[in-house]
């Protein structure tokens, strides 16, 4: 086991990791920017080192400062948390070169999964279903034939595309050739590259992800799924586990495919495979997150597995002490991300000093936060200030518990999102489990028909 770990992150996740280390008897080193000197993680860690000014590029993304801090304090491993440097292959590689263990997968895997194309082909080769589509097609007739095989609606996407440019939706076969030509023209004009490919257009899909733990001895366990379809502009707002829409058969298939993929690519440490699932229960690979995720606590609640502790043990070379057959999903858990954003002003982030804080309590209620009374939220970083997680026997009981907990949460001094989450929890489509990734955009806030 490592005797000392440096946590290259801030906020609630730094606290989460320090707490795991304290239980394990591992000494901790916190790093912080000048704007964070009053942060909780700085006080909670055994040692803390300032690594630069407020801007993340100069502090939390400053690789040389972080590595120097690790070397100076004699930290044997670095936990990158999520975001920041957690999926930076260069950082992982430099850690290895400095003789410091990076708590996460190898840099080669991070690099491979960070490249959209490479991740897709790697996963397809490992037997994971991917969204039906083609490689680059230059011949219109061949493209048309392939399009008919894939079925409509479909997307013509530019290889160099981005920012919504170079994507055209084709609804019917008779429109295909026209749209295909337009897409190529548009791509040529916008990116000077008319390479396009076809991809099935998925409507009404759910975002489902499988949590994996893989040790260095080829043991892989899947810790069930999380449903994260409640998103606003690709930012998750509320997650639950298990998903209300997964049949045991699909769950089994999804977990098995994910485990096989992790084995095939030689994955190590905690990781998540994200899928899109349509209303018929077909699921397709979206991407792999090679790090700890924000919403990991709901999996911890329903499985009883401490994911962060296992990340550290795995990085230290210890084998998993349980197998897939020992993983039992018990009850239901929901997480709400409390962001310092004003829902009435189009979720504009805000900051300020916390004049009063009341944290909800009671059995199976967990609030992971960087807040304390009197804390001033600096304006430089992510707007998430806490995660409220509750666990209960059934989904219905969990929704009740979450509503009660949200009402008990009081954060004075800033605007935050808890009212939005209360509204989501009361929405009939959410209660029915009948929601998709377009929920926030198309359903939420609309007058109900009845």
């Amino acid at each position: 086991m490592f005797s000392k770990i440096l946590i290259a992150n801030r906020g609630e996740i730094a606290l989460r990791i320090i707490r795991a280390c304290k239980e394990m008897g591992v000494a901790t080193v916190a790093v912080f920017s000048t704007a964070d000197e009053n942060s909780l993680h700085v006080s909670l860690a055994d040692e803390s080192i300032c690594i630069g000014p407020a801007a993340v590029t100069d502090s939390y993304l400053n690789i040389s400062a972080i590595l120097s801090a690790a070397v100076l304090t004699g930290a044997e491993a670095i936990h990158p948390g999520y975001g920041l440097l957690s999926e930076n292959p260069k950082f992982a590689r430099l850690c290895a070169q400095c003789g410091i263990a990076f708590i996460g997968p190898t840099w080669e895997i991070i690099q491979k999964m960070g490249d959209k194309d490479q991740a897709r082909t790697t996963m397809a080769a490992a037997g994971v279903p991917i969204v039906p589509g083609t490689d680059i097609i230059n011949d219109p007739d061949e493209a048309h034939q392939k399009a008919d095989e894939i079925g409509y609606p479909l997307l013509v996407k530019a290889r160099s595309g981005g920012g919504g440019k170079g994507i055209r939706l084709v609804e019917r076969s008779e429109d295909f050739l026209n749209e295909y030509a337009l897409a190529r023209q548009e791509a040529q004009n916008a990116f000077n590259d008319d390479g396009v490919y076809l991809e099935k257009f998925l409507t009404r899909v759910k975002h489902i992800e499988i949590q994996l733990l893989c040790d260095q001895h080829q043991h892989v366990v899947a810790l069930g799924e999380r449903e994260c379809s409640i998103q606003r502009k690709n930012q998750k707002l509320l997650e639950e586990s298990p998903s209300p829409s997964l049949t045991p058969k699909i769950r089994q298939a999804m977990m098995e495919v994910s485990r096989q993929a992790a084995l095939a690519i030689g994955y190590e440490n905690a990781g998540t495979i994200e899928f899109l699932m349509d209303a018929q229960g077909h699921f397709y690979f979206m991407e792999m997150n090679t790090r700890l995720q924000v919403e990991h606590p709901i999996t911890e609640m329903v499985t009883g597995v401490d994911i962060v502790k296992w990340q550290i043990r795995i990085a230290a070379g210890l084998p998993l002490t349980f197998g897939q057959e020992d993983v039992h999903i018990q009850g239901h858990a929901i997480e709400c991300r409390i962001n310092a954003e004003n829902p009435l002003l189009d979720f504009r982030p805000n900051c300020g000093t916390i004049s009063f804080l009341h944290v909800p309590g009671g059995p199976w209620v967990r609030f992971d936060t960087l807040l304390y009374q009197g804390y001033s939220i600096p304006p430089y970083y992510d707007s998430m200030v806490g995660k409220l997680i509750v666990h209960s026997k059934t989904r219905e009981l969990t929704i009740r518990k979450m509503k009660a907990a949200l009402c008990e949460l009081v954060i004075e001094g800033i605007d935050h999102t808890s009212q939005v989450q209360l509204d989501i929890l009361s929405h009939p489509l959410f209660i029915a489990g009948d929601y998709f990734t377009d929920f926030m955009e198309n359903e939420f806030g609309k007058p109900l028909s009845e």
Partner: protein
Amino acid sequence: MLNKGLFKKPKNELEAQHRIKRKTDPAIPSELCRSCPSCKQLSFTSDLENNFHVCPKCGHHFRINARQRLNMIVDPDTFVEQHHELSSSNRLEFPGYDEKLEQATLFSHENEGVIIGTGKIDNHKVALFVMEATFMMGSMGQVVGEKITLIFEYAHKHHLPVIGYTVSGGARMQEGMLALMQMAKTSGAVKRHSDAGLLYLAILTDPTTGGVTASFAMEGDIILAEPEALIAFAGPRVIEQTIRQRLPKGFQRAEFLLEKGFVDAIVPRSIQKETVKRLLTLHTIPKGGDQNGSI
């Protein structure tokens, strides 16, 4: 700041008992980072390699060797070196020169202070010479002069443009007059190449001084320079000691020479290949055209 002793320490024993036995303590290997002589900031060697050996923070151009330059400018696998075997001897029996040559060869892994050959730049066939700073500071002796003359003669014979990278401390003092006459010899070769209507593109890098500046470096049809390169005949220290005056900041740097009209453009490394490619395209005689470029 929150009180450091705010939280008590739980004093839990280290889980899993055994500590990992490490072969070495964590350390940052010295070859992993380089500090920039200009802004003193630390950069990772891999970042510098990906950034043409230019400091990502302040734009300082680190000195690089001739092979690295060739890799940057010439299309992959197209460079064919010529006369690699030529090496210098101590004809004047200058004391200590033999040892110096031996050391320079070991240090630079090259036989002399310049590499010549042919290659393609974006499919334009060109003759190239690239001087090597790690071999006695790229000083010009008989072999350097001879190799440069040879490449101009080869380019003349085969109707090729010449692209030349200069970096030099000047004529090699250990070879005395034999080194100085290389100035006239190389200039003659440049003139004959020029009279044939062929292009010579000189790129001056830090530092280009002495006899090299006074001959082929300044004879290019187009003279480019890298940012802040020192380009001089007598260096600033010699001038300061002679006239007993402090020289203005930036004296004899590329930007100063551009202002005075000795240099045509300053081209950072990141756009060097692109610039050379465009200049070559502009100066290539279309197929079927005559030497005046008309078709």
